[in-house]
């Protein structure tokens, strides 16, 4: 299943924004503050793909249309973009200054939250394969509920990244929040249904 042609196409297309901006940056076309712009671009696309993964189940419920087979591909794109976002921060922005990085990560809530979101993505990425689903069974679903934790942490990190609340950051945070809440209601309804012994919902 993961080797389907479309998943490669989606992955390649999904990485284009990063490649494009890297090219711009290397050719001095990202403006006066290229590292910062690139860093933010990568973070933005991580959030965008995260929104896509969170929309898949709601979309199926509302329209019956299922993109479930592609959710893993988009989820992994979230991870790749988050990796690149962190890599640019560590390498291009802070220039591997480990002392400064450690001090910042341990003192700045803004960065702690970002690091938290990234940390949660690692086990999700590592278990994004058929072998893990088979081996972990029911626990795989529980583990992947961490996605909602990632969404909340990413939303807060995004909101904290600017001097004031911006329409962009508020918009994305609201979208993430709404999707988490939607799923939260869904889970609650399922629990109530199963308590009543009524398992009509999958």
């Amino acid at each position, binding site marked *: 299943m993961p080797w389907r042609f479309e998943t490669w196409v989606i992955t390649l297309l999904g990485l284009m924004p990063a490649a494009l901006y890297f090219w711009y940056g290397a050719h001095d076309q990202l403006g006066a*503050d290229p590292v910062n712009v690139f860093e933010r671009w990568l973070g933005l696309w991580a959030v965008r793909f995260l929104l896509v993964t969170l929309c898949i189940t709601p979309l199926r419920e509302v329209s019956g249309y299922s993109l479930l087979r592609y959710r893993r591909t988009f989820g992994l794109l979230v991870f790749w973009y988050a990796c690149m976002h962190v890599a640019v921060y560590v390498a*291009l922005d802070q220039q591997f200054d480990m002392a*400064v990085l450690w001090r910042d990560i341990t*003192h700045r809530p*803004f960065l702690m939250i970002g690091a938290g979101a990234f940390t949660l993505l690692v086990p999700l990425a590592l278990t994004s394969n058929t072998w893990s689903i088979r081996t972990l069974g029911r626990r795989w679903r529980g583990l992947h509920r961490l996605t909602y934790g990632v969404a909340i942490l990413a939303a807060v990190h995004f909101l904290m990244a600017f001097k004031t609340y*911006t*329409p962009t950051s508020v918009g994305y945070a609201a979208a993430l929040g709404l999707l988490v809440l939607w799923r939260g209601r869904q889970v609650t309804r399922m629990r109530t249904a199963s308590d009543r012994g009524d398992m009509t919902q999958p």
Partner: protein
Amino acid sequence: MARWSYPHPRPSEITPHAAWMNRRHFMAAASLAAVAAPFSHTGPAMAAALRTQPGPFQATDRPTSLEDITHYNNFYEFGMGKADPSAYGAGFQPHPWTLSVEGLVAHPRIWDIDQLMATMTLEERLYRMRCVEAWSMVIPWDGFALATLLKQAEPLGSARYVAFESVVRPQQMPGQRAVLDTLPWPYVEGLRLDEAMHPLTFLAVGLYGQTLPNQNGAPVRLVVPWKYGFKGIKSITRIRLVEQMPPTTWNRMDPTEYGFFANVNPDVDHPRWSQATERVIGASGFFGGGRKKTLMFNGYGEQVAGLYGQMNLRAQF
């Protein structure tokens, strides 16, 4: 042969003595206007050449390019993006403009900006500018010391602070038309009187030898190089001498993050990011010129540390 009688001017037509004494200033201004005429109209300020002389306190750093200085701006009146002020600033009309000096002064005055620029001797000063967002530039400003203007107004003994106010023109400034205001308007700032009277404190009317572009705060803005850039209020309409510490916009937005003094200080971090280093715009590059270590008082400690003697700079940030 008829006696030729010369025309008797009416008293109202006679040039006042003071103006006649200042005729050289008017001639200089007129010739400047003639040179600038192809470039200026009442409307968006096309850059006009300024006559300046080199001033004191020149930085030894390399100046940031005009392109970067005029296309990477925080001027939320035009939008929140760094490119918004240059993209959306064209509709702003900095002429005609008046600057009012008022409050606890012996000689309050409403200056016409052209009159002000003709009266003052303009200096060129290369200053470092450090933004609170941890980036920096080096900018060749043209203008005059704020102290010159304040001394003419003669602050009264009761004056302790100087309050500054910017402009509200939603029809010319798209950022002021937003449904959700990013900042409360007008933008306001303030300095302690001794900070305002310090020779470093500068009112800029130009940069790189040309009048200020709209996105840089046309037609007149404040430059306080040892403080974070948000203290440099742009497009000033009023300067008022007051007794109480005046409100400042960013301090109102979040007093835990933006203080009144806002002195550049690598040892006092912003709650969300470190202030120990800065990205030098135009120099850091993509593959790393890297960050520069931020200097105490942005490197102007020798000139201004004395203003803060015993003050706890962490508490009074």
